[in-house]
């Protein structure tokens, strides 16, 4: 196992270390308020931070058409889980931005939660999405709807993505795709639900720029202000939640590493190719 025996001195991490893998253990979350206060303290301390704000992974949720963001009263524990399980440094807060805002173009990873009917994308929203993809951005779309809401959002998404990315459309991500092994080995993608045993995505060039889950992936990581899981994962229970979290970790690491793991299939060959003295 390749590890880095490095201890990080990151606020809140020591509390994370006490956490076990059990699902109902109270974890630690930083609410947005706590984070802001901490950040202000940091500012008055001279703006020195351990890591760059912009280089860290940040969960940025976009909204479209002026709609209220879904699940803004919950914490989506994705950054926490990524930080807890990997060496990736994450900002623990979630930022919500309208897609029409220029600020979305500052972040390479965006999440869109959807359910039910959405208005057509505004021209500015389409322009931003197009520029975002062309610049190398990654969009995770999570269909959190159930029943009819799931289908309606699904139809809307396919329609709008065709307008933003003409000539490209959502298609199933093959099981052998590197996204299923960027960190964990994933055999079947799940979320809060396990209705759709696949992910869909759009590939630009050689990279997936859109990944779409219809299983309410973020729902499996939603916590209430007290830190309890908001939703049960059905039908697999805690084991399914763990799988969903692992899938989400893989998706984040894919966004950061792209096909890094594919390179390692011929790493040995590359290393042996030119060795002095042999």
């Amino acid at each position, binding site marked *: 196992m390749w590890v880095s*025996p490095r201890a990080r001195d990151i606020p809140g991490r020591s509390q994370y270390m006490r956490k076990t893998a059990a699902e109902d253990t109270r974890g630690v979350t930083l609410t947005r308020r706590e984070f802001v206060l901490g950040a202000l303290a940091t500012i008055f301390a001279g703006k020195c931070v351990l890591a*760059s704000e912009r280089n860290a992974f940040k969960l940025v949720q976009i909204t479209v058409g002026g709609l209220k963001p879904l699940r803004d009263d919950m914490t989506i524990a994705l950054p926490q889980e990524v930080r807890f399980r990997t060496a990736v440094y994450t900002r623990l807060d979630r930022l919500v931005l309208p897609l029409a805002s220029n600020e979305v173009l500052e972040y390479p990873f965006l999440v869109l939660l959807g359910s039910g009917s959405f208005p057509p994308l505004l021209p500015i929203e389409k322009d931003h999405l197009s520029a975002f993809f062309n610049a190398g951005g990654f969009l995770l779309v999570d269909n959190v709807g159930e029943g009819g809401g799931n289908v309606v959002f699904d139809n809307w998404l396919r329609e709008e993505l065709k307008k933003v990315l003409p000539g490209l459309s959502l298609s199933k991500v093959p099981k052998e795709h590197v996204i299923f092994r960027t960190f964990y080995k994933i055999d079947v993608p799940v979320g809060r639900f396990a209705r759709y045993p696949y992910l869909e995505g759009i590939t630009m060039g050689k990279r997936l720029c859109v990944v779409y889950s219809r299983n309410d992936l973020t729902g499996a990581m939603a916590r209430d202000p007290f830190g309890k899981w908001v939703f049960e994962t059905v039908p697999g229970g805690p084991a399914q939640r763990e799988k969903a979290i692992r899938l989400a970790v893989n998706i984040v690491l894919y966004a*950061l590493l792209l096909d890094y793991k594919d390179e390692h299939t011929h790493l040995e060959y*590359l290393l042996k190719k030119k060795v002095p003295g042999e």
Partner: protein
Amino acid sequence: MEASLRFAYHSPFSWIIVLAVTLFAVTFFVIKLRSISSLRQKIYLGLLRFSSIAIVFVVFLNPTITMQEVELIKPTVLVLVDASSSTRIKTDRNNTVENMIRRFFQKNGAYFEELEKTRDVRYFAFGGNIVRITRDQILSSDMPELGSTDILHATKMALVGVDSLGGAIIITDTFHENLGKSLEQIGALLSEPILVLLADATPAPPYIAITKIKGDAFLLSRNSGEIVVSIFALVTEKMDITVALGVDGKKKLSKIVQVSPDQKDYSVTFPIFFDSSGRHFVEVRTFTGTREFSKAYKIVEVARDNIRVIHIAGAPSWDVRFLREYLRSRSDVETISFYILIDTFEDLMPSEQETVLIPFPVESFWSRNLYTSDLLVLQDYKGELDPTDRMMTAHVEAFVRNGGGLLIISGDSAPCAVPLLGQFADFLPVSGAEICDRNLVDGEWALRVPENEKDNMIVSRNHLALRLEKAPTISSLLPVEKVSEGAVVLVEGVERGKSFPVLVVKEYLRGRIGMILTDTLWRLSFNQDSRDIYADLLDGILGYLTKDPRFMPIVVKTSKDRLEPYEEARFRVLHDPYVKGLEAKIYFLDKNGEFEEVSRIDVAKDEFTFVGREHGLYRIELEGVMGGKKVRGEECFVVGHSMEEMVVANEDLSRIVVSLRNKGPIVQRLEQASLEHFKPKKEVKKVGGARSKTPIGLGFVNLLGILLLLSLEWFVEWKVLRREQATKEI
């Protein structure tokens, strides 16, 4: 001065007319003469008439007198004396061909003295080129040491400026297979007498010569290759000789070869690894414990393979992602990445079955694989604190010291970016002390190239300096107050008038190091308008750190790897237009293995020449100034004979002489040479100077004179006839 009389052409018809008229005039006169009784008068009149007819006849023929200046010149006799490296090989009787030649001239001194009186004798020493010498130099063994033998080329060069060749004497010791062909061609070239004298240069055994050094057809940097050395050996008993290979002045390998009397040619193969592209010099020596037999140099061209980059990241991040994408976008870059994906917290470690983590081959990587790459990128990597990392820092330092490139990019772990490397004095462009206690600071920093670095090749291509000023800002920076000595700040970040270094580079011995003191440079790539700025900036950094020739401010090119002694070599200089004050220093590798300066030349018009006289390896260092800093370029070349020159025959010289007959020239053995058969051409007339033509035919004055003469003749004739008539009447 020479005079000659010429007559103009006349057609047969005009001759007929002239003869008819003459006949008529003669007949008429003879009839008239009958009337004269005195014989004396007849003779007198006859002479007058015939004289006048002759004068008319001559005038008709229209002759011309031509006066021409003529010079008598001595023909040139060329004496070409072999002064190649093989003439200094010791032969059986502890002799050398050089000595044999000197004795020949001593023995035939009177002949040459006499020849010099009647001919223009020019003496040349020849090898791969020729040098004019005197007979005294031959007699006093003060001949220049030239390189390889090329008789045909030497003959052609010696003929330059020769107006009239009387003959040539060629003295050589070379028996190689081209000798017959060369003599044939000389025979065809020259019709004058040529005498070729062959000296017996069979070396005294043991004789070991290096006859060829050959690299792989395509030697690539940071790749294994082979050097094959061919040996020629003449020995009387079996013996072990050592063949040693050195590269760029450093001993590399040696092998023992057993040579025996029944075999002459041997081949030795050395595996080789060049850690950088470009031109390298290879030295091969053959020796036993007590004696060195031969030494040879060869310049080997090592091509630049794909740039191999090893990219190690302390943690995945956007900065890592966009740098990786850039590296992967370059078709000439081969990237091997190792990203740390997990921290060790024992209770949180997933099992091997659940993840796809692979172990990092720590020991073999740092001690071997690193050296196969051109550039090591440590991004957001602080280094390990365990004992294996002591190995890492030592190898990273050695890697850079031997020509590798290192790029350190700051990040979350960067506050003490690879602190262990700071232990090496003058290693990091920014000292460990400067950065270890600092953290990344958030802000909005505009990028800018310092004014005095705008000419730097890394940031001057494609107006990069100007474009950087319009690029998006970076949002983090490690605020460093000062950089190490010798480091250059190429890009700085500016906020509210205060600036800090963002990109710093430095040379460390043979390698180069760069540091990027931000982890948000990726913002330039995550923007369609500035993505090319990001790529251009990284192109420049990569090119500089891996010594891409396009980023070398000065490149020296030579027309040949090996030059003959006394041959004028031309060198061309390619340089960045901002480089000024170019000066070339030429060094010679002396017996102690040290390079000694032998010449210094100001370079004008991007070209200079040099003539090497001593045999051996030379190195050129070209220095100039760019942006107030010294920049350099290097090249090396060999002066000496070709390796084939040292292959000597071991055959009966008489048989060789016989085989070379009928090629054109007269061929004899030097020791039995007889110069009486050599008969160079005698003095020749050289027509030159003024030439005048004086016609004595149909000119007006001539005609008038002739008319007066004729009139006088008629008058005299009339007087005589009248007197005769008067006498008769009385």
